[in-house]
């Protein structure tokens, strides 16, 4: 047991903190609106220029080759400084790990630096009408073009920030005879390719953050395939592993939210009843427990382990902790909770946590079947 960071990690923290405190922008509009997205991209470029955009990546792609510990430290400092949600996250946290694992050196060189620099902005094309958490129900299809490359046709939906992004990754059925998770292939697609129509639509929290993406006989080159034809399911599972695991929700975010909740209570002593103080303490305890669980997980990963199905524990825990935490904030706000403010938006967004990246119902199945060994049927 050693729960102290090294001197060099402390130095890394100090550097990150200093830069973030000086540079984190205030009052950006939501990154899920057109205007806010542009503001966020500007911020992401600033991050990149200072080499804070992708700290864990190799230096040649714009990173600092930071360790997992340093990445956790950076995330803590990022949220502590009030850094806004990353509009590049679907690329950096979902696509990039897959490109690192499955991409050719040429693909890595082509995709990663532009992603880090926020030159290419990636959205995910997982869901289709009629297939939400059921990725294997993909019906969008791709067929080989006789002159080379592929022809893609189909429809993706619930694509977060799809109306503002420049590129999309997603699964297409390359074997028309196949069913379920067989015969799928993972594609990376520039959204300005001929035949693609993107239609943004409004989200519950008022932002136009969703899009439908229609593909009609869209031509992409062979290099658009990531990880081999027909290998899409395996490749995608690797990405959803990232999505559910450590990378999407670092503990820093919830620790920061819990601290903000404590501040909110301190600013409203009359509203902070003993019952709410108990809930706030619970929220803080849970955020801290999530951090500690993550530290033990990272210890194991650094020693060569793999989180595997354990990441389902993370997903369920942080997503439900987030709802409790944000809901407690609304209770503190009382009638003011109905105003369209940061806490209420966060609450509504938190309700999506148990839905996206594999519903918590599916995660609990995974926990029971893969971690506890209960029978599938």
């Amino acid at each position, binding site marked *: 047991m050693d729960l102290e960071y090294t001197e060099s990690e402390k130095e890394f923290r100090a550097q990150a903190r200093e830069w973030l405190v000086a540079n984190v922008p205030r009052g950006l509009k939501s990154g899920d609106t057109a205007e806010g997205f542009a503001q966020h991209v500007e911020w992401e470029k600033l991050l990149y220029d200072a080499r804070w955009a992708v700290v864990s990546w190799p230096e040649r792609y714009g990173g600092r080759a930071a360790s997992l510990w340093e990445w956790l430290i950076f995330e803590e400092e990022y949220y502590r400084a009030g850094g806004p949600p990353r509009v590049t996250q679907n690329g950096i946290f979902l696509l990039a790990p897959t490109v690192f694992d499955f991409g050719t050196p040429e693909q890595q060189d082509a995709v990663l630096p532009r992603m880090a620099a926020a030159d290419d902005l990636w959205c995910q094309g997982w869901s289709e009408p009629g297939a939400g958490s059921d990725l294997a129900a993909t019906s969008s299809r791709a067929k080989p073009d006789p002159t080379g490359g592929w022809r893609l046709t189909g429809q993706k939906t619930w694509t977060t920030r799809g109306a503002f992004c420049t590129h999309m990754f997603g699964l297409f059925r390359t074997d028309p005879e196949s069913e379920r998770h067989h015969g799928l292939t993972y594609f990376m697609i520039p959204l300005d390719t001929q035949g693609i129509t993107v239609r943004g639509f409004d989200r519950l929290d008022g932002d136009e953050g969703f899009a439908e993406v229609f593909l009609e006989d869209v031509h992409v080159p062979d290099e658009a395939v990531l990880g081999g034809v027909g290998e899409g399911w395996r490749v995608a599972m690797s990405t959803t592993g990232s999505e559910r695991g450590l990378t999407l929700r670092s503990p820093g975010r919830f620790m920061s939210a819990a601290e903000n909740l404590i501040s909110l209570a301190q600013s409203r002593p009359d509203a902070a009843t003993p019952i709410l103080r108990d809930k706030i303490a619970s929220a803080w305890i849970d955020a801290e427990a999530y951090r500690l669980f993550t530290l033990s997980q990272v210890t194991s990963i650094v020693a060569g382990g793999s989180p595997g199905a354990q990441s389902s524990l993370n997903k369920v825990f942080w997503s439900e902790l987030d709802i409790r935490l944000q809901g407690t904030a609304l209770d503190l706000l009382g009638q003011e909770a109905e105003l369209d403010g940061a806490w209420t938006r966060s609450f509504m967004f938190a309700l999506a946590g148990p839905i996206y990246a594999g*519903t918590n119902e599916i995660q609990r199945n995974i926990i029971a079947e893969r971690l506890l060994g209960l029978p599938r049927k």
Partner: protein
Amino acid sequence: MYFALNDDQTALREGVRDLLTGECTPELVRGAWADPAAGAAALWAQLTEMGLPGAAVPEAQGGLGLGACDIVPLLEEAGRVAAPIPLVETAFVAAPLFAAAGLETELDLLLEGKLLVACALDGSPLVPYGQFADRTLISSDASAGRSIRMLDAVTTAAAGSAVDSIDATRAVLSLAGDRPEGVRLDLSPAQATAAWQRGVLGSAAELVGLARTLLAQTTAYVKDRRQFGVPVGSFQAIKHHLADALIAVEFAGPAVMRAAWSLDQGSSNRDRDVAMAKALASAAAERVAAIAVQCHGAIAYTTEYDLHLYAKRVWAGSRCWGSAEWQRRRVAVALGL
């Protein structure tokens, strides 16, 4: 002992339900998001034809002379369609108050359907519907029978500023800083307290109606929607979510009706019973809204789908007129805890 609506009550409820189902469609509610005043006016005109403004006003003063047991089912119907209108405030809180306080001008206008009333009864600076209401009732401690004051629209507008609710139909006004005095209503403490109780109860009834709609929409959705080759509603986890939702609604509903009875009878337990009703209704509506979102999945998140119209009304309204925790504290005190 007969714990059910009688024939007249059932007929009235069905009449209002038919009207609201036909008129207060999701499209009308969406229209009210764009123009809350116009949406409310259109619906109020329809309800005025049925005499709803005067529902709680004595017949001698031109109303229908109905009691809480008659009116509460109608408010539940209004909740069911997320009627974008201060119906509880106007017809259930203000109308009998105007009658009691002898405010003839206001009462006449109200009975003609020409007056909508907003309330800031529980000391909050926020006034739902304050942006377009013709009168605003204001009190810092109505539950304890303190005085109630009334502002006209001009005074309210001058003293307040529009703020954004997550449910745009609520057209919330914020009365920051010093509040105008307004006109003090000539009421006994008991009358003021009763007005507060009607507001709490009416709000509880609307929340139960909203919860029923959220549950019905979700039930229909999970029967239809297929994932992994089967209807989503065939998964045990989804079944159990919806069973919990039904339980929450079914055990809140009778408590709301009982509180109506206690008000009508002037029961010595009416304050406790109203508090219990609101505590259960708020908790049930919040629970059902969360379950509805979870069982829908991503589609719950788009404003093109109707669910958010009802869910946001719950999130906006569940803490008004006393949150579940606040109301349970009232019950605890009544029980000697």
